[in-house]
């Protein structure tokens, strides 16, 4: 169950680094270049890196339905993200972003957040991606262009990603090590849980693994949270949306006399 097998604390186990490096190499090979991209080798490297990370313990190893669904959605999200990063055709990239959004929605369902799953899909897959596609069709009627068939410094970008992912995993692993040793405040999934604020009169129930139960009526409780403790931010978000709408109209407006000539 533990994400990282118990080891000497503070030492990064280099298998993870090598697996991530393989993934970075795969994405480097998959990024579009003028010479065309090495699709087969790149996909093999990226998939191999994903499988290696799973084998090393980055994926939970249970036989429950929840674990199976987690595997499915996590793999779909990551594969969709790789497609999004490496597609030459921007319209296809937008569609693979829809795949990522749907898979993340599945993960949110597993995390007992059905309202967020729906909101996420409606806002992203429904509104934002469609707007992106509109602008894409408005701006790019001549098919693929110079901007799509080239990458800007793909090697440096992949190196940045490798460094960032390795340090993030190192952080997660250190946390896990501290939890195993009983240092630190968080102890993996058995952390002491703050009482559920909205249901304080009820005794806090726990699932067998120590995780607190989430209220089944997610939407009701989320609404209560939003309009009691988060009321001011809700109003501010509304104001922000209004300002952004006005700003977008103002920016994109074509006014006579202000045309910029290249």
């Amino acid at each position, binding site marked *: *169950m533990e*994400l990282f097998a118990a080891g000497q604390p503070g030492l990064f186990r280099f298998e993870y680094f090598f697996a991530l490096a393989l993934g970075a190499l795969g*994405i480097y090979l998959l990024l579009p270049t*003028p010479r065309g991209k090495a699709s087969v080798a790149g996909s093999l490297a990226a998939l191999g890196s994903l499988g290696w990370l799973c084998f090393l313990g*980055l*994926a939970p*190893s*249970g036989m429950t339905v929840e*674990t199976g669904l*987690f595997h499915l959605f996590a793999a779909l*999200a*990551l594969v969709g*993200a*790789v497609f*999004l990063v490496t597609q030459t055709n921007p319209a296809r990239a937008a569609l693979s*972003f829809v795949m990522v959004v749907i898979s*993340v929605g599945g*993960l949110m369902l597993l*995390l007992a957040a059905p309202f*967020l799953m729906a*909101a*996420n899909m409606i806002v*992203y897959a429904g509104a*934002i991606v469609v707007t*992106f596609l509109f*602008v894409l069709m*408005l701006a790019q009627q001549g098919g693929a*262009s*110079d*901007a*799509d068939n080239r990458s*800007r*410094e793909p090697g*440096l*970008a992949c190196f940045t*990603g490798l460094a*960032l*992912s390795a340090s*993030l*995993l190192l952080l*997660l692993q250190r946390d896990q090590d501290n939890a195993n040793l009983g240092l630190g405040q968080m102890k993996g*999934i058995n952390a002491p849980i703050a009482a559920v604020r*909205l249901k304080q009169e009820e005794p806090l129930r726990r699932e*067998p*693994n120590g*995780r*607190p*139960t*989430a209220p089944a009526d*997610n939407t009701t409780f989320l609404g209560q*949270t939003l309009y009691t403790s988060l009321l001011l*931010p809700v109003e501010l978000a509304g104001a922000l*949306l209004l300002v*952004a709408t006005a*700003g*977008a*109209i103002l920016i*994109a407006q074509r006014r006579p006399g202000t045309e*910029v000539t*290249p």
Partner: protein
Amino acid sequence: MNQIMDLPPGLTHYLAVGALLFVLGIIGFLARRNMILMFLNAELMIQGVALNFVAFARHRGNLEGQGFVLFLLAVAACEAAIALALILVLYRTQNSLDVSLWQNLREEGLEPIVDEEPLPLAPLEEKSPSLTVAGPGPAQPEETSHV
């Protein structure tokens, strides 16, 4: 041991997936040159962050994290609207979505990035010979219903 094996995925697994999504978004944002794709990659990063928030909300057993994701959605929608308006303006000035055409905005003293490799020319499509249509036209399918 058996009971441990059957536990559902924990906080760290979701955090790892969120981190990988974020990193992929960063790679795409740095490496792609199409402005629209760059902003799609920024949205990908936001997805990773939202997953982290929801995982922490589940872990702590309260709904503050989920509430925060709603604000994240609102900010992402604002960002998309403003970004698309800006992209439209930039497209009108340069007639291209390529972000490298705006290199004159770079820092002082930096050399502009020049593409050494030319793009391969698209193969010329040979026009297939066509004959003028002769004879009676093909039979049209008859309408079967007249509702």
